[in-house]
Protein backbone atom coordinates (compact mmCIF):
# COMPACT_ATOMS: atom_id res chain seq x y z
CA UNK A 1 0.00 0.00 0.00
CA UNK A 2 2.99 2.25 0.32
CA UNK A 3 3.56 4.90 -2.25
CA UNK A 4 6.44 7.19 -1.60
CA UNK A 5 8.21 9.76 -3.63
CA UNK A 6 11.50 11.36 -2.90
CA UNK A 7 12.74 14.28 -4.87
CA UNK A 8 16.46 14.50 -5.41
CA UNK A 9 17.97 17.92 -5.31
CA UNK A 10 17.33 19.98 -8.40
CA UNK A 11 15.09 17.53 -10.19
CA UNK A 12 11.83 18.31 -11.86
CA UNK A 13 8.76 16.24 -11.31
CA UNK A 14 5.20 16.04 -12.43
CA UNK A 15 1.87 15.18 -10.92
CA UNK A 16 1.00 16.37 -7.44
CA UNK A 17 4.39 17.93 -7.06
CA UNK A 18 5.05 21.17 -8.84
CA UNK A 19 8.34 22.92 -9.19
CA UNK A 20 6.65 26.23 -9.33
CA UNK A 21 7.71 29.70 -10.31
CA UNK A 22 4.85 31.03 -8.24
CA UNK A 23 3.11 29.29 -5.45
CA UNK A 24 -0.20 27.67 -6.17
CA UNK A 25 -0.46 27.04 -2.43
CA UNK A 26 -0.88 30.77 -1.97
CA UNK A 27 -2.76 31.61 -5.14
CA UNK A 28 -5.35 28.88 -4.94
CA UNK A 29 -6.90 30.40 -1.79
CA UNK A 30 -9.93 32.50 -2.69
CA UNK A 31 -8.68 35.63 -0.93
CA UNK A 32 -5.36 36.89 0.47
CA UNK A 33 -4.79 36.43 4.21
CA UNK A 34 -6.54 38.99 6.40
CA UNK A 35 -7.64 39.52 10.00
CA UNK A 36 -10.96 40.96 8.81
CA UNK A 37 -13.78 38.59 7.97
CA UNK A 38 -15.18 41.15 5.51
CA UNK A 39 -12.18 40.53 3.24
CA UNK A 40 -13.40 36.99 2.54
CA UNK A 41 -16.45 36.19 0.42
CA UNK A 42 -18.89 33.71 1.94
CA UNK A 43 -17.79 30.33 0.58
CA UNK A 44 -20.15 28.38 -1.65
CA UNK A 45 -18.28 25.10 -1.45
CA UNK A 46 -16.46 24.89 -4.76
CA UNK A 47 -13.41 26.89 -3.63
CA UNK A 48 -10.20 24.87 -3.42
CA UNK A 49 -9.97 25.35 0.35
CA UNK A 50 -13.63 24.45 0.98
CA UNK A 51 -14.36 21.78 -1.57
CA UNK A 52 -14.06 18.87 0.87
CA UNK A 53 -15.97 20.54 3.72
CA UNK A 54 -19.76 20.15 4.15
CA UNK A 55 -20.59 23.83 4.64
CA UNK A 56 -24.12 23.13 5.84
CA UNK A 57 -22.64 21.40 8.87
CA UNK A 58 -20.53 24.44 9.89
CA UNK A 59 -23.64 25.72 11.70
CA UNK A 60 -23.17 29.22 10.28
CA UNK A 61 -19.49 29.74 11.16
CA UNK A 62 -18.74 30.44 7.52
CA UNK A 63 -21.54 32.90 6.65
CA UNK A 64 -21.84 35.16 9.67
CA UNK A 65 -25.03 33.60 11.02
CA UNK A 66 -23.39 31.87 13.98
CA UNK A 67 -23.66 34.43 16.79
CA UNK A 68 -21.64 33.93 19.95
CA UNK A 69 -23.71 32.91 22.96
CA UNK A 70 -22.84 33.80 26.54
CA UNK A 71 -21.54 30.45 27.66
CA UNK A 72 -20.10 28.84 24.54
CA UNK A 73 -17.03 27.24 25.98
CA UNK A 74 -15.35 27.29 29.36
CA UNK A 75 -11.57 27.56 29.33
CA UNK A 76 -9.52 26.48 32.36
CA UNK A 77 -5.77 26.83 32.36
CA UNK A 78 -3.61 24.94 34.80
CA UNK A 79 -0.01 26.09 34.59
CA UNK A 80 3.05 25.30 36.70
CA UNK A 81 4.83 28.02 38.60
CA UNK A 82 6.77 30.48 36.49
CA UNK A 83 4.20 30.58 33.71
CA UNK A 84 2.24 33.81 33.16
CA UNK A 85 -1.44 33.26 32.33
CA UNK A 86 -3.43 36.30 31.17
CA UNK A 87 -6.76 37.17 29.64
CA UNK A 88 -6.42 40.19 27.38
CA UNK A 89 -8.50 42.45 25.19
CA UNK A 90 -8.58 42.57 21.41
CA UNK A 91 -6.04 45.37 21.20
CA UNK A 92 -3.23 43.46 22.88
CA UNK A 93 -0.12 43.73 20.71
CA UNK A 94 0.80 40.09 21.22
CA UNK A 95 -2.19 38.74 19.29
CA UNK A 96 -1.97 37.62 15.70
CA UNK A 97 1.81 37.70 15.39
CA UNK A 98 2.30 34.04 14.43
CA UNK A 99 0.12 34.17 11.34
CA UNK A 100 -2.80 35.80 9.59
CA UNK A 101 -6.13 34.06 8.99
CA UNK A 102 -6.21 32.49 5.53
CA UNK A 103 -9.86 31.56 5.23
CA UNK A 104 -13.24 32.97 6.09
CA UNK A 105 -13.85 31.02 9.31
CA UNK A 106 -10.39 31.77 10.74
CA UNK A 107 -10.97 35.46 9.97
CA UNK A 108 -14.44 35.22 11.50
CA UNK A 109 -12.89 33.84 14.69
CA UNK A 110 -10.35 36.65 14.75
CA UNK A 111 -12.99 39.29 14.07
CA UNK A 112 -15.45 38.00 16.65
CA UNK A 113 -13.57 37.01 19.82
CA UNK A 114 -13.97 39.37 22.80
CA UNK A 115 -11.14 38.23 25.05
CA UNK A 116 -8.02 36.28 24.20
CA UNK A 117 -5.82 34.05 26.33
CA UNK A 118 -2.08 34.60 26.50
CA UNK A 119 0.19 32.04 28.14
CA UNK A 120 3.81 33.07 28.44
CA UNK A 121 6.76 30.93 29.45
CA UNK A 122 9.56 33.39 30.27
CA UNK A 123 12.95 32.99 28.66
CA UNK A 124 15.16 30.17 29.87
CA UNK A 125 12.32 28.71 31.95
CA UNK A 126 12.26 24.94 31.61
CA UNK A 127 9.02 23.35 32.78
CA UNK A 128 8.90 19.82 34.11
CA UNK A 129 5.09 19.60 34.17
CA UNK A 130 2.74 20.31 31.25
CA UNK A 131 0.60 23.41 30.93
CA UNK A 132 -2.96 22.15 30.62
CA UNK A 133 -5.63 24.14 28.80
CA UNK A 134 -9.08 22.60 29.13
CA UNK A 135 -11.63 23.86 26.62
CA UNK A 136 -15.02 22.52 27.57
CA UNK A 137 -17.99 23.13 25.30
CA UNK A 138 -21.22 24.08 27.03
CA UNK A 139 -23.53 23.81 24.08
CA UNK A 140 -23.21 27.33 22.70
CA UNK A 141 -21.42 29.20 19.92
CA UNK A 142 -17.99 30.66 20.70
CA UNK A 143 -15.09 32.47 19.06
CA UNK A 144 -11.70 32.43 20.64
CA UNK A 145 -8.04 33.20 20.37
CA UNK A 146 -5.17 31.73 22.35
CA UNK A 147 -1.51 32.69 22.32
CA UNK A 148 1.25 30.47 23.70
CA UNK A 149 4.61 32.21 23.74
CA UNK A 150 7.94 30.79 24.82
CA UNK A 151 10.87 33.09 25.46
CA UNK A 152 14.35 32.24 24.26
CA UNK A 153 15.55 28.81 25.41
CA UNK A 154 12.34 28.12 27.34
CA UNK A 155 11.00 24.57 27.24
CA UNK A 156 7.37 23.53 27.73
CA UNK A 157 4.71 20.96 27.01
CA UNK A 158 1.18 22.25 26.43
CA UNK A 159 -1.89 20.02 26.40
CA UNK A 160 -5.05 21.56 24.95
CA UNK A 161 -8.01 19.35 25.65
CA UNK A 162 -11.32 19.93 23.85
CA UNK A 163 -14.39 18.22 25.31
CA UNK A 164 -18.15 18.76 25.51
CA UNK A 165 -20.41 20.22 22.88
CA UNK A 166 -19.87 23.56 21.12
CA UNK A 167 -19.81 25.38 17.83
CA UNK A 168 -16.33 26.84 18.08
CA UNK A 169 -14.09 28.82 15.77
CA UNK A 170 -10.81 29.56 17.50
CA UNK A 171 -7.27 30.20 16.41
CA UNK A 172 -4.07 29.50 18.31
CA UNK A 173 -0.72 31.26 17.95
CA UNK A 174 2.46 29.53 19.04
CA UNK A 175 5.47 31.80 19.19
CA UNK A 176 8.83 30.22 19.90
CA UNK A 177 11.81 32.36 20.85
CA UNK A 178 15.32 31.45 19.78
CA UNK A 179 16.33 27.98 20.93
CA UNK A 180 12.95 27.34 22.58
CA UNK A 181 11.38 23.88 22.66
CA UNK A 182 7.61 23.52 22.62
CA UNK A 183 5.57 20.34 22.47
CA UNK A 184 1.84 20.80 21.95
CA UNK A 185 -0.80 18.09 22.24
CA UNK A 186 -4.19 19.24 21.00
CA UNK A 187 -6.89 16.65 21.69
CA UNK A 188 -10.27 17.00 20.00
CA UNK A 189 -12.36 14.67 22.16
CA UNK A 190 -15.64 16.46 21.48
CA UNK A 191 -19.16 15.15 21.90
CA UNK A 192 -20.87 13.90 18.76
CA UNK A 193 -22.53 17.17 17.72
CA UNK A 194 -19.65 19.58 18.21
CA UNK A 195 -18.26 21.73 15.40
CA UNK A 196 -14.69 22.99 15.72
CA UNK A 197 -12.76 25.01 13.19
CA UNK A 198 -9.41 26.61 13.81
CA UNK A 199 -6.15 27.84 12.40
CA UNK A 200 -3.04 27.01 14.44
CA UNK A 201 -0.11 29.20 13.56
CA UNK A 202 3.38 28.43 14.76
CA UNK A 203 6.24 30.86 14.29
CA UNK A 204 9.49 29.10 15.04
CA UNK A 205 12.49 31.08 16.19
CA UNK A 206 16.11 30.51 15.33
CA UNK A 207 17.23 27.02 16.37
CA UNK A 208 13.87 26.45 18.07
CA UNK A 209 12.00 23.13 18.02
CA UNK A 210 8.24 22.77 17.68
CA UNK A 211 6.58 19.42 18.09
CA UNK A 212 2.86 19.08 17.68
CA UNK A 213 0.38 16.25 18.14
CA UNK A 214 -3.09 16.85 16.81
CA UNK A 215 -5.42 14.11 18.02
CA UNK A 216 -8.99 14.14 16.72
CA UNK A 217 -11.61 11.65 17.85
CA UNK A 218 -14.84 13.48 18.39
CA UNK A 219 -17.12 16.08 16.91
CA UNK A 220 -19.56 16.18 14.04
CA UNK A 221 -17.16 18.37 12.07
CA UNK A 222 -13.59 19.23 12.98
CA UNK A 223 -11.46 21.24 10.59
CA UNK A 224 -8.02 22.29 11.74
CA UNK A 225 -5.39 24.17 9.86
CA UNK A 226 -1.93 23.92 11.43
CA UNK A 227 0.55 26.27 9.78
CA UNK A 228 4.26 26.63 10.27
CA UNK A 229 6.62 29.46 9.44
CA UNK A 230 10.18 30.12 10.55
CA UNK A 231 11.52 33.33 12.09
CA UNK A 232 15.16 32.28 11.87
CA UNK A 233 17.52 29.61 10.58
CA UNK A 234 17.89 26.20 12.22
CA UNK A 235 14.23 25.83 13.20
CA UNK A 236 12.64 22.41 13.35
CA UNK A 237 8.99 21.38 13.20
CA UNK A 238 7.59 17.92 13.78
CA UNK A 239 3.87 17.69 13.10
CA UNK A 240 2.16 14.48 14.12
CA UNK A 241 -1.52 13.74 13.86
CA UNK A 242 -3.91 10.94 14.74
CA UNK A 243 -7.56 10.79 13.92
CA UNK A 244 -10.25 8.19 14.34
CA UNK A 245 -13.18 9.06 12.14
CA UNK A 246 -16.49 7.35 12.91
CA UNK A 247 -19.74 7.05 11.01
CA UNK A 248 -21.03 10.47 9.97
CA UNK A 249 -18.01 12.40 11.21
CA UNK A 250 -16.07 14.89 9.09
CA UNK A 251 -12.49 15.38 10.27
CA UNK A 252 -10.27 17.58 8.20
CA UNK A 253 -6.65 18.45 8.80
CA UNK A 254 -5.02 20.93 6.45
CA UNK A 255 -1.36 21.61 7.00
CA UNK A 256 0.98 24.15 5.56
CA UNK A 257 4.68 24.30 6.20
CA UNK A 258 6.15 27.45 4.73
CA UNK A 259 9.89 27.03 4.39
CA UNK A 260 10.59 30.73 4.14
CA UNK A 261 13.98 30.61 5.87
CA UNK A 262 17.19 28.71 5.04
CA UNK A 263 18.34 25.58 6.88
CA UNK A 264 15.11 24.62 8.59
CA UNK A 265 13.55 21.18 8.94
CA UNK A 266 10.02 19.85 8.92
CA UNK A 267 8.59 16.39 9.33
CA UNK A 268 4.86 15.71 8.99
CA UNK A 269 3.24 12.37 9.86
CA UNK A 270 -0.53 12.04 10.13
CA UNK A 271 -2.36 8.75 10.55
CA UNK A 272 -6.04 8.09 10.55
CA UNK A 273 -8.41 5.17 11.01
CA UNK A 274 -11.95 5.31 9.65
CA UNK A 275 -15.03 3.22 10.21
CA UNK A 276 -18.71 3.44 9.44
CA UNK A 277 -21.03 4.98 6.91
CA UNK A 278 -20.23 8.55 5.98
CA UNK A 279 -16.98 8.73 7.93
CA UNK A 280 -14.95 11.29 6.02
CA UNK A 281 -11.34 12.22 6.67
CA UNK A 282 -9.53 14.90 4.72
CA UNK A 283 -5.81 15.49 4.87
CA UNK A 284 -4.14 18.26 2.94
CA UNK A 285 -0.39 18.51 3.30
CA UNK A 286 1.08 21.59 1.70
CA UNK A 287 4.80 22.19 1.87
CA UNK A 288 6.26 25.24 0.22
CA UNK A 289 10.01 25.68 -0.13
CA UNK A 290 10.58 29.29 -1.04
CA UNK A 291 13.48 30.40 -3.21
CA UNK A 292 15.34 31.76 -0.19
CA UNK A 293 15.01 28.52 1.82
CA UNK A 294 18.25 26.82 0.86
CA UNK A 295 19.25 23.80 2.93
CA UNK A 296 15.64 22.83 3.67
CA UNK A 297 14.96 19.28 4.79
CA UNK A 298 11.32 18.22 4.69
CA UNK A 299 9.20 15.09 4.58
CA UNK A 300 5.46 14.63 4.87
CA UNK A 301 3.43 11.47 5.19
CA UNK A 302 -0.22 10.56 5.53
CA UNK A 303 -1.53 7.05 6.15
CA UNK A 304 -5.12 5.97 6.42
CA UNK A 305 -6.60 2.69 7.54
CA UNK A 306 -10.15 2.08 6.38
CA UNK A 307 -11.82 -0.46 8.68
CA UNK A 308 -15.24 -0.76 7.08
CA UNK A 309 -17.13 0.04 3.92
CA UNK A 310 -18.78 3.43 3.59
CA UNK A 311 -15.86 5.54 4.77
CA UNK A 312 -14.08 8.06 2.59
CA UNK A 313 -10.58 9.53 2.63
CA UNK A 314 -9.26 12.47 0.66
CA UNK A 315 -5.50 12.73 1.05
CA UNK A 316 -3.68 15.40 -0.92
CA UNK A 317 0.03 15.99 -0.41
CA UNK A 318 1.39 18.98 -2.26
CA UNK A 319 5.03 19.96 -2.37
CA UNK A 320 6.25 23.07 -4.11
CA UNK A 321 9.92 23.73 -4.52
CA UNK A 322 11.32 27.05 -5.63
CA UNK A 323 14.96 26.23 -5.02
CA UNK A 324 17.00 23.17 -5.86
CA UNK A 325 19.57 23.89 -3.15
CA UNK A 326 17.92 21.73 -0.52
CA UNK A 327 18.88 18.75 1.63
CA UNK A 328 15.78 16.76 0.86
CA UNK A 329 12.08 16.90 0.16
CA UNK A 330 9.63 14.04 -0.07
CA UNK A 331 6.13 12.92 0.58
CA UNK A 332 4.03 9.79 0.83
CA UNK A 333 0.33 9.15 1.03
CA UNK A 334 -1.39 5.81 1.25
CA UNK A 335 -4.76 4.46 2.20
CA UNK A 336 -5.14 0.79 3.10
CA UNK A 337 -8.07 -1.37 4.06
CA UNK A 338 -8.63 -3.72 6.92
CA UNK A 339 -10.77 -6.26 5.19
CA UNK A 340 -12.40 -9.64 5.68
CA UNK A 341 -9.36 -11.51 4.40
CA UNK A 342 -7.14 -9.84 6.99
CA UNK A 343 -9.69 -10.63 9.66
CA UNK A 344 -9.78 -14.25 8.51
CA UNK A 345 -6.00 -14.50 8.55
CA UNK A 346 -5.69 -13.22 12.11
CA UNK A 347 -8.63 -15.31 13.34
CA UNK A 348 -7.12 -18.40 11.69
CA UNK A 349 -4.25 -17.87 14.12
CA UNK A 350 -6.58 -18.06 17.11
CA UNK A 351 -7.09 -14.32 17.55
CA UNK A 352 -10.70 -13.33 18.32
CA UNK A 353 -12.35 -10.83 15.94
CA UNK A 354 -12.38 -7.81 18.24
CA UNK A 355 -8.80 -8.50 19.32
CA UNK A 356 -7.79 -8.68 15.67
CA UNK A 357 -9.25 -5.25 14.98
CA UNK A 358 -7.66 -3.79 18.07
CA UNK A 359 -4.32 -5.33 17.15
CA UNK A 360 -4.40 -3.73 13.75
CA UNK A 361 -5.50 -0.27 14.87
CA UNK A 362 -3.25 -0.09 17.93
CA UNK A 363 -0.33 -1.23 15.81
CA UNK A 364 -1.16 1.34 13.19
CA UNK A 365 -1.15 4.21 15.69
CA UNK A 366 1.51 2.92 18.07
CA UNK A 367 4.55 4.59 16.54
CA UNK A 368 2.90 8.00 16.83
CA UNK A 369 1.31 7.50 20.24
CA UNK A 370 4.64 6.46 21.76
CA UNK A 371 6.26 9.71 20.73
CA UNK A 372 3.86 11.93 22.66
CA UNK A 373 5.79 11.51 25.89
CA UNK A 374 2.90 12.58 28.18
CA UNK A 375 1.94 9.38 29.99
CA UNK A 376 -1.65 10.16 30.93
CA UNK A 377 -2.38 11.35 27.39
CA UNK A 378 -0.83 8.24 25.81
CA UNK A 379 -2.84 5.98 28.11
CA UNK A 380 -6.03 7.93 27.44
CA UNK A 381 -5.53 7.66 23.69
CA UNK A 382 -5.13 3.90 23.82
CA UNK A 383 -8.25 3.60 25.97
CA UNK A 384 -10.06 5.89 23.56
CA UNK A 385 -8.99 3.81 20.55
CA UNK A 386 -10.33 0.69 22.27
CA UNK A 387 -13.61 2.44 23.07
CA UNK A 388 -14.02 3.54 19.47
CA UNK A 389 -13.49 -0.03 18.33
CA UNK A 390 -15.89 -1.47 20.89
CA UNK A 391 -18.55 1.01 19.81
CA UNK A 392 -18.21 -0.04 16.19
CA UNK A 393 -18.33 -3.82 16.35
Amino acid at each position, binding site marked *: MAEAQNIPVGSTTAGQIAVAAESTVATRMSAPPSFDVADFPVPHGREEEWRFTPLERLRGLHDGTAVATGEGVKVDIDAPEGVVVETVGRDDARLGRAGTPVDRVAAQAYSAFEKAGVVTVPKETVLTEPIRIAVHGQGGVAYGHQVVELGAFAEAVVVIDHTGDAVLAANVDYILGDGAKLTVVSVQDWDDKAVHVGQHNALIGRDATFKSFVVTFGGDLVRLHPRIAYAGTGGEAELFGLYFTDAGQHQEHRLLVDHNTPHCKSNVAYKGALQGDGAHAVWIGDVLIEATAEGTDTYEMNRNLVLTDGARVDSVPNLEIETGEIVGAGHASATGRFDD*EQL*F*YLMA*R*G*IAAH*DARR*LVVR*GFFAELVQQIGVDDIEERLLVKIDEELEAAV
Partner: protein
Amino acid sequence: MATLEIRDLHVTVEADNATKEILKGVDLTVKQGETHAIMGPNGSGKSTLAYSLAGHPKYTITGGTVTLDGEDVLEMSVDERARAGLFLAMQYPVEVPGVSVSNFLRTSATAIRGEAPKLRTWVKEVREAMERLNMDPAFAERNVNEGFSGGEKKRHEILQLELLKPKIAILDETDSGLDVDALRVVSEGVNRVRESGEVGTLLITHYTRILRYIKPDHVHVFSAGRIVESGGAELADKLENEGYEVYTKGGASA
Protein backbone atom coordinates in the same frame (compact mmCIF):
# COMPACT_ATOMS: atom_id res chain seq x y z
CA MET B 1 -4.54 -39.03 20.09
CA ALA B 2 -5.96 -36.16 18.07
CA THR B 3 -8.05 -37.19 15.10
CA LEU B 4 -9.63 -35.06 12.40
CA GLU B 5 -12.57 -36.79 10.78
CA ILE B 6 -14.16 -35.49 7.60
CA ARG B 7 -17.34 -37.28 6.56
CA ASP B 8 -19.23 -36.74 3.30
CA LEU B 9 -18.35 -33.04 3.22
CA HIS B 10 -20.25 -30.95 0.68
CA VAL B 11 -19.34 -27.31 0.11
CA THR B 12 -20.68 -24.62 -2.22
CA VAL B 13 -19.56 -21.13 -3.21
CA GLU B 14 -21.47 -18.22 -4.70
CA ALA B 15 -19.99 -17.19 -8.03
CA ASP B 16 -21.53 -15.09 -10.80
CA ASN B 17 -24.91 -15.07 -9.05
CA ALA B 18 -24.98 -18.85 -9.04
CA THR B 19 -24.35 -21.44 -6.39
CA LYS B 20 -21.67 -23.90 -7.36
CA GLU B 21 -20.91 -27.11 -5.53
CA ILE B 22 -17.14 -27.53 -5.18
CA LEU B 23 -16.80 -30.35 -2.67
CA LYS B 24 -19.00 -33.32 -3.43
CA GLY B 25 -18.64 -35.69 -0.53
CA VAL B 26 -15.14 -35.74 0.94
CA ASP B 27 -14.21 -38.52 3.38
CA LEU B 28 -10.87 -38.39 5.15
CA THR B 29 -9.42 -39.20 8.56
CA VAL B 30 -6.15 -37.63 9.68
CA LYS B 31 -4.57 -38.74 12.93
CA GLN B 32 -1.84 -37.13 14.98
CA GLY B 33 1.55 -38.30 13.71
CA GLU B 34 0.31 -39.08 10.20
CA THR B 35 1.08 -37.20 7.01
CA HIS B 36 -1.47 -37.22 4.22
CA ALA B 37 -0.78 -35.73 0.83
CA ILE B 38 -3.75 -34.54 -1.18
CA MET B 39 -2.85 -34.19 -4.82
CA GLY B 40 -4.93 -33.09 -7.71
CA PRO B 41 -5.25 -30.89 -10.74
CA ASN B 42 -6.05 -27.19 -10.56
CA GLY B 43 -9.71 -26.56 -9.88
CA SER B 44 -10.34 -29.93 -8.30
CA GLY B 45 -11.32 -28.35 -4.97
CA LYS B 46 -8.17 -28.96 -2.91
CA SER B 47 -7.90 -25.39 -1.64
CA THR B 48 -11.63 -25.26 -1.00
CA LEU B 49 -11.18 -28.21 1.33
CA ALA B 50 -8.38 -26.40 3.17
CA TYR B 51 -10.29 -23.13 3.56
CA SER B 52 -13.55 -24.87 4.47
CA LEU B 53 -11.81 -26.69 7.30
CA ALA B 54 -10.40 -23.38 8.56
CA GLY B 55 -13.84 -21.75 8.34
CA HIS B 56 -13.43 -19.15 5.61
CA PRO B 57 -16.76 -17.30 5.28
CA LYS B 58 -16.73 -17.55 1.49
CA TYR B 59 -17.59 -21.25 1.63
CA THR B 60 -20.94 -22.71 2.65
CA ILE B 61 -21.11 -26.18 4.14
CA THR B 62 -24.18 -27.88 2.70
CA GLY B 63 -23.65 -31.40 4.04
CA GLY B 64 -21.43 -33.71 6.02
CA THR B 65 -19.48 -33.43 9.24
CA VAL B 66 -16.02 -32.45 10.42
CA THR B 67 -14.92 -33.34 13.93
CA LEU B 68 -11.69 -32.92 15.84
CA ASP B 69 -11.52 -35.45 18.66
CA GLY B 70 -15.28 -35.74 18.44
CA GLU B 71 -15.89 -31.97 18.70
CA ASP B 72 -17.95 -30.43 15.89
CA VAL B 73 -15.52 -28.23 13.99
CA LEU B 74 -18.19 -26.80 11.70
CA GLU B 75 -19.93 -25.22 14.70
CA MET B 76 -16.78 -23.33 15.68
CA SER B 77 -15.80 -19.82 14.61
CA VAL B 78 -12.52 -19.38 12.74
CA ASP B 79 -10.56 -18.45 15.86
CA GLU B 80 -12.13 -21.28 17.87
CA ARG B 81 -10.96 -23.79 15.27
CA ALA B 82 -7.43 -22.43 15.54
CA ARG B 83 -7.53 -22.62 19.31
CA ALA B 84 -8.89 -26.17 19.08
CA GLY B 85 -5.69 -27.12 17.24
CA LEU B 86 -6.32 -26.61 13.52
CA PHE B 87 -3.72 -24.69 11.56
CA LEU B 88 -3.92 -23.63 7.93
CA ALA B 89 -0.72 -22.54 6.20
CA MET B 90 -2.12 -20.42 3.40
CA GLN B 91 -1.21 -20.41 -0.23
CA TYR B 92 -1.66 -16.64 -0.38
CA PRO B 93 -0.98 -15.20 3.09
CA VAL B 94 -2.62 -11.83 3.61
CA GLU B 95 -0.88 -8.51 4.28
CA VAL B 96 -1.88 -6.95 7.58
CA PRO B 97 -0.81 -3.30 7.66
CA GLY B 98 0.14 -1.86 11.03
CA VAL B 99 0.86 -5.17 12.73
CA SER B 100 4.47 -6.24 13.17
CA VAL B 101 5.43 -9.89 12.83
CA SER B 102 6.64 -9.99 16.44
CA ASN B 103 3.40 -8.51 17.78
CA PHE B 104 1.35 -10.83 15.61
CA LEU B 105 3.25 -13.97 16.65
CA ARG B 106 3.00 -13.14 20.33
CA THR B 107 -0.71 -12.29 20.15
CA SER B 108 -1.36 -15.47 18.25
CA ALA B 109 0.69 -17.64 20.62
CA THR B 110 -1.11 -16.06 23.57
CA ALA B 111 -4.48 -16.90 22.02
CA ILE B 112 -3.54 -20.47 21.12
CA ARG B 113 -1.76 -21.30 24.37
CA GLY B 114 -4.35 -19.59 26.53
CA GLU B 115 -1.77 -17.42 28.30
CA ALA B 116 0.95 -15.01 27.29
CA PRO B 117 4.28 -16.81 26.83
CA LYS B 118 6.97 -15.66 29.25
CA LEU B 119 8.81 -12.86 27.52
CA ARG B 120 12.36 -14.10 27.95
CA THR B 121 11.76 -17.65 26.78
CA TRP B 122 9.47 -16.39 24.03
CA VAL B 123 12.08 -14.08 22.52
CA LYS B 124 14.54 -16.95 22.47
CA GLU B 125 11.99 -19.36 21.04
CA VAL B 126 11.13 -17.01 18.19
CA ARG B 127 14.74 -16.15 17.48
CA GLU B 128 15.77 -19.79 17.28
CA ALA B 129 12.80 -20.73 15.11
CA MET B 130 13.64 -17.88 12.74
CA GLU B 131 17.28 -18.94 12.57
CA ARG B 132 16.26 -22.47 11.62
CA LEU B 133 14.22 -21.03 8.74
CA ASN B 134 17.09 -18.77 7.63
CA MET B 135 15.05 -15.68 8.43
CA ASP B 136 16.72 -12.34 9.17
CA PRO B 137 15.91 -11.13 12.73
CA ALA B 138 14.90 -7.75 11.22
CA PHE B 139 11.96 -9.63 9.74
CA ALA B 140 10.21 -9.53 13.12
CA GLU B 141 9.78 -5.77 12.91
CA ARG B 142 8.18 -5.73 9.49
CA ASN B 143 4.42 -5.65 9.07
CA VAL B 144 2.80 -9.04 8.56
CA ASN B 145 3.33 -10.15 4.94
CA GLU B 146 3.68 -6.54 3.78
CA GLY B 147 6.19 -6.46 0.96
CA PHE B 148 7.27 -10.05 1.64
CA SER B 149 8.59 -12.09 -1.26
CA GLY B 150 6.80 -15.34 -2.06
CA GLY B 151 9.46 -17.31 -0.22
CA GLU B 152 9.33 -15.02 2.82
CA LYS B 153 5.58 -15.45 3.07
CA LYS B 154 5.88 -19.24 3.10
CA ARG B 155 8.69 -19.21 5.66
CA HIS B 156 6.56 -16.97 7.82
CA GLU B 157 3.70 -19.49 7.59
CA ILE B 158 5.98 -22.34 8.62
CA LEU B 159 7.43 -20.20 11.41
CA GLN B 160 3.89 -19.94 12.79
CA LEU B 161 3.43 -23.68 12.39
CA GLU B 162 6.56 -24.30 14.47
CA LEU B 163 5.56 -21.83 17.18
CA LEU B 164 1.86 -22.67 17.44
CA LYS B 165 2.27 -26.47 17.44
CA PRO B 166 -1.19 -27.40 16.19
CA LYS B 167 -2.78 -30.85 16.39
CA ILE B 168 -3.66 -30.80 12.73
CA ALA B 169 -1.71 -28.77 10.16
CA ILE B 170 -3.18 -28.13 6.73
CA LEU B 171 -0.55 -26.91 4.28
CA ASP B 172 -2.20 -25.41 1.23
CA GLU B 173 0.24 -25.45 -1.71
CA THR B 174 3.04 -24.38 0.57
CA ASP B 175 5.44 -25.44 -2.18
CA SER B 176 4.01 -23.25 -4.91
CA GLY B 177 6.20 -20.43 -6.10
CA LEU B 178 9.28 -21.60 -4.18
CA ASP B 179 12.70 -22.16 -5.68
CA VAL B 180 14.55 -25.33 -4.68
CA ASP B 181 16.48 -23.73 -1.81
CA ALA B 182 13.38 -22.18 -0.28
CA LEU B 183 11.47 -25.42 -0.77
CA ARG B 184 14.16 -27.31 1.13
CA VAL B 185 14.17 -24.81 4.04
CA VAL B 186 10.39 -24.82 4.28
CA SER B 187 10.20 -28.62 4.04
CA GLU B 188 12.77 -28.99 6.80
CA GLY B 189 10.58 -26.79 8.96
CA VAL B 190 7.56 -28.96 8.30
CA ASN B 191 9.60 -32.10 9.03
CA ARG B 192 10.79 -30.72 12.37
CA VAL B 193 7.17 -30.31 13.40
CA ARG B 194 6.21 -33.75 12.07
CA GLU B 195 9.10 -35.42 13.89
CA SER B 196 7.56 -34.33 17.17
CA GLY B 197 4.85 -36.88 16.40
CA GLU B 198 2.34 -34.39 17.81
CA VAL B 199 0.85 -33.17 14.56
CA GLY B 200 -1.27 -34.68 11.84
CA THR B 201 -0.35 -33.14 8.51
CA LEU B 202 -2.57 -32.61 5.50
CA LEU B 203 -0.28 -31.58 2.67
CA ILE B 204 -2.13 -30.15 -0.30
CA THR B 205 -0.13 -29.89 -3.47
CA HIS B 206 -0.32 -29.90 -7.21
CA TYR B 207 3.23 -31.16 -7.68
CA THR B 208 5.11 -34.22 -6.49
CA ARG B 209 8.28 -32.18 -6.01
CA ILE B 210 7.67 -31.40 -2.32
CA LEU B 211 7.10 -35.12 -1.59
CA ARG B 212 10.82 -35.69 -2.12
CA TYR B 213 11.36 -33.66 1.03
CA ILE B 214 8.24 -34.49 3.01
CA LYS B 215 7.44 -38.20 2.87
CA PRO B 216 3.71 -38.86 3.17
CA ASP B 217 2.20 -41.93 4.81
CA HIS B 218 -0.88 -41.67 2.65
CA VAL B 219 -1.49 -40.12 -0.77
CA HIS B 220 -4.97 -39.19 -1.97
CA VAL B 221 -5.90 -38.12 -5.46
CA PHE B 222 -8.46 -35.33 -5.48
CA SER B 223 -10.60 -34.75 -8.54
CA ALA B 224 -13.90 -33.01 -9.15
CA GLY B 225 -14.52 -32.32 -5.49
CA ARG B 226 -13.75 -35.65 -3.91
CA ILE B 227 -11.06 -38.19 -3.20
CA VAL B 228 -10.99 -40.61 -6.12
CA GLU B 229 -8.09 -42.81 -5.12
CA SER B 230 -6.03 -43.39 -1.99
CA GLY B 231 -2.78 -45.24 -1.49
CA GLY B 232 0.67 -45.09 0.00
CA ALA B 233 3.69 -43.08 -1.09
CA GLU B 234 3.90 -45.15 -4.26
CA LEU B 235 0.75 -43.45 -5.55
CA ALA B 236 2.73 -40.21 -5.79
CA ASP B 237 5.27 -41.93 -8.03
CA LYS B 238 2.48 -43.06 -10.28
CA LEU B 239 1.15 -39.49 -10.51
CA GLU B 240 4.67 -38.25 -11.22
CA ASN B 241 4.90 -40.57 -14.21
CA GLU B 242 1.35 -40.54 -15.49
CA GLY B 243 -0.07 -37.17 -14.44
CA TYR B 244 -3.71 -36.52 -13.58
CA GLU B 245 -5.20 -37.29 -17.00
CA VAL B 246 -6.43 -40.69 -16.00
CA TYR B 247 -8.55 -39.05 -13.27
CA THR B 248 -9.82 -36.05 -15.19
CA LYS B 249 -10.80 -37.79 -18.40
CA GLY B 250 -14.27 -39.08 -18.90
CA GLY B 251 -16.41 -36.13 -17.89
CA ALA B 252 -15.17 -35.64 -14.34
CA SER B 253 -14.63 -31.98 -15.08
CA ALA B 254 -13.69 -29.68 -12.23
